[in-house]
C-alpha cells in the first residue's frame, strides 16, 4: 500500500526533512520517492531508520553511489540535485552521519547557496523588482489587478528569501560553533 504526503521544505530545511522522514519510518511508512513537495511512502514494519540528504547537484560520479552503499547507506531517490539516503539505526555502528566534520557541512551549505539561492537573488534583483516598478504605474484600470497579483508574488518571494537567509545564517553559526 502506498500513500502520498505533501510537505514543503526550503533548501535549508534539510535537517527538518531528515527528521520528518525518520518519524514517518518509525510510524511504518518508508519513503520510495519524492518530487517537488510530494513524498510517496510505502507501508513497512516500524523501525528506527536514519534519513540523510546530500546535495550534489549532478557533481557525483559513478563511484559515489558505490561508496555510500559500502558505508551502509541505501540510496532512495533524487530530486533537483538532492540525494536521499537511509540506514537502519541498528546497523549504524556509530556512523549515523554522512558528514563527520563541519568543514564538509559548510562546503555543502556553500554549494547550496551558490547554485540555488544566489540565482534566485539575482532573478529577484534583476527581473522581479524592476518589473514590479514598471507595474506600479498602471495605464489601464485593469492593470490594477496585475499590480495586486504581482505585489502578492513579490511579498511571497521576499518572505521566502528572508526565511532562507536567516536559516542559512543559523546553520552556518551552528556548524562553526561545534
Amino acid at each position: 500500500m502506498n500513500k502520498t504526503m505533501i510537505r514543503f521544505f526550503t533548501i535549508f530545511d534539510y535537517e527538518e526533512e531528515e527528521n520528518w522522514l525518520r518519524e514517518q519510518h518509525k510510524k511504518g511508512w518508508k519513503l520510495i520517492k519524492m518530487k517537488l513537495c510530494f513524498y510517496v511512502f510505502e507501508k513497512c514494519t516500524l523501525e528506527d531508520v536514519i534519513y540523510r540528504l546530500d546535495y550534489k547537484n549532478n557533481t557525483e560520479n559513478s563511484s559515489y553511489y558505490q561508496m555510500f552503499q559500502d558505508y551502509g547507506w541505501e540510496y532512495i531517490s533524487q530530486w533537483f540535485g538532492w540525494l536521499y539516503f537511509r540506514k537502519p539505526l541498528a546497523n549504524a555502528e556509530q556512523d549515523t552521519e554522512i558528514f563527520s566534520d563541519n568543514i564538509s557541512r559548510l562546503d555543502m551549505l556553500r554549494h547550496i547557496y551558490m547554485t540555488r539561492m544566489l540565482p534566485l537573488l539575482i532573478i529577484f534583483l534583476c527581473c522581479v523588482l524592476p518589473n514590479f516598478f514598471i507595474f506600479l504605474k498602471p495605464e489601464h484600470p485593469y492593470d490594477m489587478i496585475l499590480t495586486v497579483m504581482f505585489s502578492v508574488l513579490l511579498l511571497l518571494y521576499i518572505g521566502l528569501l528572508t526565511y532562507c537567509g536567516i536559516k542559512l545564517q543559523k546553520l552556518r553559526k551552528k556548524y562553526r560553533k561545534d
Partner: protein
Amino acid sequence: MDSKLKRIYVPMTESGFYILFCLHEPQHGYGISQQVRHMTNGELIISAGTMYGTLSKMEKDGLISFVKETEKRKLYQITATGKEILELELHRIERLYKNSKGEIIHE
C-alpha cells in the same frame, strides 16, 4: 610546491591527514575509512560524504591521483605533491609534540 596548496592543506584536518596517509597504498574510500577506524581504535570515523568530498578535492588539487576502478570503486594513491604536503604536516605535528614535552627545536 604551490604556496596556495600549502596554505589550504597545512595545517590539515584530522580526516584529511589520515586519508592522505592511508593512500601510500592504492585504496578506495570505504577501505580508507575501515583502515582509519582500525588504526585509531574507532576514535576517528570518516563518514561517506566527508570521504567523497575530501577525495574529490584532493584529486582536483593533485595531492592524490586516480589509479583504477574495480567493481565501481575508485582507487586512489598519493602523488609526489601529496607526499610533500604530508611531510610538511608531519613536521608540524612533530614540532607540536616535541614542544608540548618541553623540547626546543634545533634545526
